[in-house]
């Protein structure tokens, strides 16, 4: 049973009807092609109007869809010779982030990403992609290694936020994030970031600064998850939908403010509706940006990166 949101129900009903009609026409040997064509056209229009006018909250739902592709899916598809590297060399290995080295579009790269689980069981292991300080420090270690060997860094962002708990505070969640931000802003290799689902708060930013920031069409990126924002402002996490509308967290909003560089289109209805096409669409954009920034002079690259962040918010 696929996850179907309320606003998608008319589409699924129509699609079910079309499938039934096709089955019926095949069974009875009747030619219903014209009727089917009309219905298919109507379904396409419905999809275009629905998915082309998603509210911010609907985008949050799509960005969190359980069948949406995760960091490992992209890494496995885009990289050859990927070798996963574990651990922060200090405390442990945080399964909420994955990292390693591989070859992407001809370049040997370091790649890191938040990793959610596909189901509840895996999510318990992956902690829903909510990293601990150890996850931040694993990423920091891999960043420094990328710098040492002159490898570009590719980051996939997909987290509701950094983990919130006693251990995370005891091991310095804030310090770990802060160190990553400083490292990303000064790292002497090219960095491409892709927001592939949800980017929430400092936990997202700890893997989310670079020379190029791409966002998939229906992904979201915000100062905190809508739930956390509602809890902070109204002390009521139940008003998340309202917070999502106010936070201006869509890729379209972020492009307008110059926070991101490009929106990567998704298959109609979102990544989960056609993963193969989603892979192709992101591959094209990611490889193009990677290629562009790898050709830039490193000094120029760092100056541009600095000014990009210095300018954000100076509207």
């Amino acid at each position: 049973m696929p996850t179907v949101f309320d606003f998608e129900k008319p589409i699924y009903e129509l699609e079910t009807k079309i499938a039934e009609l096709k089955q019926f026409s095949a069974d009875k040997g009747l030619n219903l092609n014209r009727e089917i064509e009309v219905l298919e056209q109507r379904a396409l229009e419905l999809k275009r109007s629905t998915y082309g006018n998603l509210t911010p909250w609907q985008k949050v739902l799509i960005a969190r869809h359980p069948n949406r592709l995760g960091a490992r899916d992209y890494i496995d598809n885009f990289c050859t010779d990927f070798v996963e590297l574990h651990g922060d060399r200090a405390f442990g290995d945080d399964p909420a982030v994955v990292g390693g080295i591989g070859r992407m579009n001809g370049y040997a790269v370091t790649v890191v990403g938040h990793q959610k689980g596909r189901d509840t069981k895996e999510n318990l292991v992956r902690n829903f992609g909510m990293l601990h300080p150890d996850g931040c420090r694993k990423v920091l270690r891999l960043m420094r290694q990328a710098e040492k060997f002159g490898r570009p860094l590719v980051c996939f962002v997909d987290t509701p936020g950094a983990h919130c708990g006693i251990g995370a505070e005891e091991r310095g969640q804030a310090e770990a994030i802060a160190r990553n931000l400083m490292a990303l802003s000064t790292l002497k290799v090219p960095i491409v970031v892709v927001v592939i689902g949800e980017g929430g708060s400092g936990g997202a930013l700890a893997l989310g600064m670079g020379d190029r920031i791409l966002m998939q069409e229906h992904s979201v990126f915000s100062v905190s998850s809508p739930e956390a924002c509602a809890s902070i402002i109204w002390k009521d996490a139940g008003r998340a939908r309202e917070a999502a509308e106010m936070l201006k967290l869509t890729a379209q909003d972020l492009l307008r403010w110059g926070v991101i560089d490009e929106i990567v289109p998704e298959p109609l209805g979102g990544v989960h509706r056609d993963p193969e096409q989603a892979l192709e669409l992101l591959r094209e954009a990611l490889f193009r940006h990677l290629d562009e920034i790898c050709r830039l002079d490193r000094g120029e690259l760092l100056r541009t990166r600095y000014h990009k962040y210095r300018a954000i918010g100076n509207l």
Partner: protein
Amino acid sequence: MVQAPGEVGTVFELFRKSKYFTVQPESKREIPEGLWIKCRCREILFSKDLSRNYKVCQKCGHHFRLTAWERIELTLDPDSFVEFDADLEPRDILEFPGYAQKLAKAQEETGLREAVVTGEGTIGGHRVVVVVMDAHFIMGSMGTVVGEKVARAAERALEKRVPLVAFSASGGARMQEGILSLMQMGKTAAALGRLDQAGLLYISVLTDPTMGGVSASFGFLGDIILAEPGALIGFAGPRVIEQTIRQKLPDGFQQAEFLQEHGFVDLVVPRNRLRDTIIKILGLHQQGE
């Protein structure tokens, strides 16, 4: 049925709510504002005495929050401070409901334009650039103007080649400026990254409270990190953590002393020794003296 008057009274007495005088223990109405201040240890403090004691309770040692200008007066050499970017004013870019009014109210109540005051001056004769946050202004939250002022302060320190000293006091990123607030973490970290690479000293003093987007950016990037006793310091707020894990947090959790114990703060310094400690550190970073 006719009842004796006394009986009526008795029946009424049964249902009538007893009247008590209500005493509001936390009410300030009993105490003239500004003259007497009640500490959380319940001690009533004469406000002039409190000011003379660096706004630290004489009885329990509780450090009251300072305004930005009180901090500047307490830390910098007299008449040495020159403010930067005093004209920068926040705007309601997202048109977030209620934000414009919140800003106006904060400005009226604090006399500040934003939650941070930056500038240059001397501390014990040492030239420094300072960043001083004020938690009285929307809980010292960081939006675009706070981020911009901090970044500019770091750039001026770099330009003048003097140390940067920051006093943070903030609940974190300002929700009402959305993603633009989050990006100020990146902006301030980038500016401090340049300072770091230039080999300049940055002393970060964490005061009550330093949380979220401020602790997770310029707060924890100091070469030397000091903290005031009892200051709440961390990433996620205690209320959020309690709601998430559904259990009571241990005593002292996220307090300055806890951070020092876990290795994230160099030294917890009581306010009456803070200025001297900073002067000592600044002196130790001067060549040949």
